[in-house]
């Protein structure tokens, strides 16, 4: 009997050792060989970015002209002050605004410049004296009695990065240094908010990240009108000719683009690359039949039906096959002799002055009536028509500004904002746009990269190749490009330092890299490997191997339990 017992023990030991070998060698081997490749990703840094803490710094220079400071105040000048303001947008987004103000007195040349007869000339000559860097603001404080600004105007904002501020009455300012600052600071902040950024702008730019509190409908519509930030835009002008038998259209689009659109785009060059093209489409119809209004003797398009106008036309516009940037479409529709004049009516049934409308994040359409050129039925068709581009481009330029987000928000009372001139865009307007675009880019890139990280975390099947990891992390080995995380960190750091130009540059790179990472084709290689196929392959091997091991383990365990029971009962 003893030999049988020894034999049983040996069998048990053998079963146990096989189980141990399977667990210690087999399982890790299987695990390692079937694992999907995951390159190293900076998960910690991505998680840090998920909690976005942005600090925006503006350099403000405040220059006192002669006659604005009391003698004892003058002794303290120059000095610097830093103001900080923190805003918590939501649980993982915090914004801090930092205004670094430098106070000094005006030098002789600036004094001379401020003696110019009008504010616009003063603005120009002040600009020639010093070129302030991108993103900074210079505020000149002039005495109450100065005639530079017209009556009732306290603040003047020119084309550049300078503003002229009228000092309040001396009594209200007070003699003390502290009183002076208390008087000036809120007003300077107001000027800076107009010229660089305000909290509403920045939160609107963060809309990709932060779910906006249901505010007013209008502000929502405003924020949804302009295009999302993108490294490039394609602008397409299309002339729609519904009936070439009725008229032949000629437009000098090349000249018009050159003289109306190009100056604005040249100014906007740091923001994005723009490319312009134009086409003429024949037999392009609107999607709705305009109604004939006999009281006006004209055809009308109601505001409600405008939504249906675009779709059939869009099929003809053709996408740009050569790039993947968003397209801004501007359509000029010239109704034919039998359907003109055509007027667009708004919701109050009133004709729209420009006879044009725009569609958010898509573009604009303008109707150009030429019925007065047809004569009285004698002229043989087709009629040759030359389009007045000045009229057309005025409308399109305004729509383009809206689409690009160059918003002229209403200035606070007492502010005089110089209307934009030939360039179509003031320097500070460009700065405003750059601030919000940088923040938007950073927000978009962080959301992209964090959601990508989450996705990788959730779906284990996704392959992570080296090139993909490159566009996520630090350095893109192949193209010598910065990865998303590095560019994001650099962009945030530059924003903190107040270098707006560099911050925008890095934020653009971050967006590009994050898109590249998100759409990396190697991610999909193993994504759709179905589980049932895996089991179909594993079961024929694993089932016959594991069942005996499991059974013998169960048997050993139950025997051990019985023996313990037996021992206990013996003790008892």
């Amino acid at each position, binding site marked *: 009997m003893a030999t049988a017992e020894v034999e049983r023990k040996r069998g048990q030991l053998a079963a146990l050792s096989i189980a141990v070998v399977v667990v210690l060698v087999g399982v890790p081997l299987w695990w390692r060989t079937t694992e999907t490749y995951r390159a190293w990703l900076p998960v910690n840094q991505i998680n840090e970015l998920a909690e976005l803490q942005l600090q925006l710094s503006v350099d403000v220079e405040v220059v006192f002209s002669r006659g604005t400071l009391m003698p004892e105040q003058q002794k303290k000048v120059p000095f610097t002050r830093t103001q900080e303001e923190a805003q918590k947008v939501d649980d993982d987004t915090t914004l801090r605004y930092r205004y670094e103000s430098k106070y000094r007195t005006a030098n002789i040349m600036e004094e001379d410049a401020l003696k110019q007869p009008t504010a616009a000339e003063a603005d120009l000559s002040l600009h020639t004296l010093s070129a302030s860097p991108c993103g900074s603001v210079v505020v000149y404080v002039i005495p109450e009695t100065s005639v530079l600004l017209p009556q009732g105007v306290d603040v003047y904002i020119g084309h550049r990065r300078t503003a002229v501020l009228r000092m309040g009455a001396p009594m209200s300012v007070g003699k003390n240094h502290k009183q002076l600052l208390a008087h000036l600071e809120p007003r300077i902040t107001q000027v800076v908010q107009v010229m660089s950024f305000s909290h509403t702008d920045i939160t609107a730019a963060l809309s990709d990240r932060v779910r906006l509190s249901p505010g007013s409908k209008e502000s929502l519509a405003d924020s949804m009108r302009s295009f999302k930030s993108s490294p490039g835009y394609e602008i397409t002008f299309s002339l729609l000719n519904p009936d070439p038998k009725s008229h032949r259209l000629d437009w000098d689009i090349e000249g018009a683009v050159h003289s109306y659109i190009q100056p604005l785009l040249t100014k906007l060059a740091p923001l994005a690359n723009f490319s312009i*093209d134009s086409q003429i489409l024949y037999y392009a119809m609107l999607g709705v039949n305009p109604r004939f209004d006999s009281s006006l003797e004209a055809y009308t398009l109601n505001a409600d039906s405008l939504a249906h106008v675009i779709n059939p036309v869009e099929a003809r516009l053709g996408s740009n096959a050569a790039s993947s940037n968003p397209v801004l479409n501007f359509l000029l529709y010239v109704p034919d002799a039998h359907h003109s004049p055509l007027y667009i009516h708004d919701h109050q049934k009133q004709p729209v002055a420009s006879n044009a409308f725009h569609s958010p994040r898509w573009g604009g359409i303008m109707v150009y009536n030429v019925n007065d050129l047809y004569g009285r039925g004698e002229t043989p068709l087709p009629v040759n028509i030359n389009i007045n581009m000045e009229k057309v481009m005025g409308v399109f330029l305004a729509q383009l500004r809206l689409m690009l987000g160059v918003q002229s928000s209403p200035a606070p009372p007492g502010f005089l904002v110089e209307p934009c001139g030939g360039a179509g865009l003031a320097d500070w307007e460009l700065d405003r746009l750059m601030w919000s675009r940088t923040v938007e880019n950073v927000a978009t890139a962080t959301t992209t990269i964090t959601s990508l990280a989450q996705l990788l975390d959730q779906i284990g099947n996704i392959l992570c190749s080296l090139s993909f990891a490159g566009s996520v992390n630090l350095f893109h080995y192949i193209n010598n490009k910065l990865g998303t995380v590095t560019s994001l960190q650099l962009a945030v750091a530059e924003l903190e330092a107040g270098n707006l130009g560099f911050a925008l540059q890095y934020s653009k790179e971050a967006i590009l890299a994050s898109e590249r990472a998100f759409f990396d084709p190697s991610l999909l290689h193993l994504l759709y490997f179905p589980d049932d196929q895996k089991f179909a392959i594993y079961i024929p091997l694993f089932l016959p191997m594991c069942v005996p091991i499991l059974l013998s383990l169960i048997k050993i365990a139950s025997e051990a339990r019985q023996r313990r029971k037996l021992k206990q009962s013996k003790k008892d």
Partner: protein
Amino acid sequence: MAIRRLKHTRTHAHACMLQTPLDDFQEELVIRPLHSGDIYASFQFRTVWDADFMGDQKVSHYRLFPKSLGQVITKFSVRELHISFTQGYWRTMQWGQPYLPSPPGAELWVWFQDTVTDVDGTWKELTNVLSGIFCASLNFIDSTNTVQPSASFKPLGIGNVTDHSFLRYATLPREIVCTENLTPWKKLLPCGSKAGLSVLLKSEKLFHSTFHSQAVHVRPVCQDPQCRTTSMELRQTLNVVFDLHTSGQGKREWSLFKMFSRTLTEACPLASSSKVYVDVTDNPQFELSPATPLLTQAVVLGDRRTYSVYDLTQQASFGSSRSLNMLLRWKAADGEMLRPLLHSERYVAGYGLQAGEIHTLIYNHHPYRAFPVLLLSAVPWYLRLYIHTLTVSSKGKDNRPSYIHYQPSKDRERPHLLEMLLQLPPNSVTEVTVEFERALLKWTEYTPDPNHGFYVGSSVISALVPSVVAMDTNSTLDRPLFSSFFPCKEEASYFMRVYTEPLLVNLPTPDFSMPYNVICLTCTVVAVGYGSLYNLLTRTFQVDEPSPGLAKRIANVIRRFRGVPLL
């Protein structure tokens, strides 16, 4: 055209600060009754734009030229682009020569400008973009089906580029052409399908035909006789053959309405010329109504043909019914067709799934003239050509090619390219044979229906064929004697391209459930071996009393009943 130009110069005088490049659009339809009773209709739409695509300045303001194509040409620095989509095979022996030959499936060949540095990368991107524009599977063009012909495809536009490293040629013989390819093609026309000849292009009729081919050709052409500046020419062509029996109900009677289920009512208002030609050379075999007084003669493909012309820009062409529906009615059933001088056949010979032989037969039907042809064949890498078995023979004699360009294939990288210059003796058949071995593919490289076979694209034969006009030296019909002594005339020969049939080759195809079967079988074997080993190791073995046999047990039961002692 002249009027348009005048108009343009006038506007130019008005706004002389920036000159708008001139553009011009023409449309044309040629109808040729075929001897078999089928009918051949060939559309051509031509847009010429005096814009310099090859200069430094970007072209971005489009008028008649389609923007989507222009952008592609600009972005990828394309000098010439030729793309065709064809459904069906052109039967040269029955139908004669087509105006524009094309191989079955899709064909794309592009000359890039010499400023392009990475030609292969640009080609890859270009094919992807074009596949988007034409809704075709051109994105399947990769290095395994792209070749660089050294002699067969010379630029058709101006410019004497000889460096064939800027040329890429690819065919997709498997491509199926249908409505989704026609719609984007029609979108490129200035008048769309709204006016002019393009109203006839309705897909339900066009694709109910034996042969359908649509193509886009972009090339630079001379702007003026001195050729100082170049224009870009876009030619969109569509060729279709309607079958006598399926479309014509067996009656030798054709009309525009019967062919296209539409009639013509107007010209495209943007076209400077809009004409319909009907080939009436074989009249009086058939009659044409309404009759047109306009006749024109042209030497087409080496043959002098007569055409009736309907000018759609003239109101008179439409008659009182305001629509043009010309009718062709045959009087005699059969005529004699001039045999095409050059045609070819190709087939795969051999048995089994290991080796085979490609035969290409090239026929020269000219009674007394020999002429050279260039033969190009691109064979995929999975047919491994044995180039040492290449034989060329005509009239039973060895025919040594005067030029051979052979580029061997690389597995999964590039195809075989074989180009030869052959002299075809008069009235002969030249046979080119080469043996090949079928390669085994990896199981992911097979197409979804591998038992259908694998296509090998058409071979291309390019030749300067002696003209038929030059052939009839005996005829002194209407020519003065002094003009007909030397057989060579200005139209002595013409350029022609003939495409052979694509080949369908069966490759050894595995059973695709085999990997799973193998896995199951191996696992079972392993599991059985492992199981017995496991049993041996873990079980305890004891000597047991052998149990009594069945007979003994039954006997014992009976004995118990009887009360007899057990065994």
